[in-house]
């Protein structure tokens, strides 16, 4: 399973989210490849799941991708809750 975490620049926010997603996976006892990138690159990449802040992630939503939109990117509890149905 490959999870791609996305933000506008692909540098800061998505990186922190990636660390939080990895933390959530450890707490859930699951394994997945987690990487982070920018919006432009995300459109060209294959992944089983795309995660990002709710204000931009929907621009990737073209009906072909599984998407998780986060309210608070620092909330590991929220990430765990939204991630669980997909694992």
């Amino acid at each position, binding site marked *: 399973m490959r999870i791609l975490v996305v*933000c*506008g*620049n*692909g*540098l*800061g*926010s998505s*990186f*922190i989210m990636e*660390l939080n997603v990895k933390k959530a996976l450890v707490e859930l006892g699951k394994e997945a490849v987690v990487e*982070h*990138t*920018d*919006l*432009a690159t995300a459109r060209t990449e294959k992944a089983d799941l795309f995660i990002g*802040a*709710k*204000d*931009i992630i929907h*621009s990737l939503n073209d009906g072909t991708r599984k998407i998780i939109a*986060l*309210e*608070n*990117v*620092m909330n590991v509890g929220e990430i765990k809750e939204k991630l669980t149905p997909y694992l």
Partner: protein
Amino acid sequence: MFNMIMKDILGTPAILVGLFALIGLLLQKKGVADIIAGTLKTIMGFVIIGAGANVIISSLDIFGKMFNKAFHLSGVIPNNEAIVAVAQNAFGMETALIMVLGMVVNILLARFTRFKYIFLTGHHTMFMACLIGVILSTGGLKGADLVIIGSVLLGLCMVLFPALLQSYVKQITNSDDFAVGHFGSLGYFAAGTIGKYFGNKENSTENIKVPKQLSFLRDTSVAVSLTMTILFVIVALFAGQSFVESELSGGTNFIVYSLIQAITFAAGVYIVLAGVRILIAEIVPAFKGIADQIVPNAKPALDCPTVFPFAPNAVIIGFIMSFLAGLISMFVLPALGLAVIVPGLVPHFFTGATAGVFGNATGGRRGAILGAFANGLLISFLPALLLPLLGTLGFEKTTFGDSDFGVVGLILGFIMRLF
């Protein structure tokens, strides 16, 4: 042998950062495969940044010639990625050493003072390390003095700027979980303060209907391509078809040529961003891992878009107002005898939007509008004032974008003149 270690290993920035990544990976007790991959990728990230710099310079050089012909003035486009990438040729070693030791100073300050912040925005750590290295070098510092003083200054920046903003961040997020670690702090602080005194936080921006169409500009590649295309075409029209086609493009139609040069600049930024992403991918987790063990109760200081979801409308309003201030400044600056700072969509988007969120939290709609406008003025005037302090780097037609780089640069430049 000693010479080889000092000159070729520590003197080659790419190898130096690779070495830091290696140490970080060893400290995290990673497996052999991870250690090899991480070290190699870090070195590659550094090389990619250099390659991107060459692409950016070629396009900026042409922009500069056109701009000069068109207006008989020098036009400068602030872009952190561009200036840092260009600076790596001359200041790569200083940047790498100050960056890593600055992180150590950050951890020590968080451990032993009341400023319990760990600054996790790795690319901004790198940019600030570069700025400090450039200003101190230009001011005459060298060797160990430069690295030690630079690292202490960087470590201070990494805790003091987040501390400055924290009271406002609490109002935005209604929690004390994280801080904002992004070197546009002065603009955000100005926005929050202006909102507090001139606005009313009851009239939140989030009660208005704002069209969602502008969110495509969140995509940096799109934003850079679009701005540069508009700028290049306008400047090419002023420079004149005959000049462009005879002097620069070798006969290619001047509009087509401008379009390609604009996209070339954007491609250069894209390459540099990719390099920075790979470079910091190994260093930040190591930093965070070590910090978590030494300062367990610290707050992470994070990149500015982490506050965007708290007020999406303020993001759009903030960007528009900041950019407007940038456009107005473009005409005011030359009248004051300063360089023309061409407003870039990227710095105005990210810092303007953040200023909008801060202004809205303390002063609602009026706070977002006035606060982001103030931010736009700051990121137009500060880069113009900073330019003369960058020495020969100042001739590259680009400079640092965000407000804190300008303030730190100006204060350090002033102090350096006293000695």
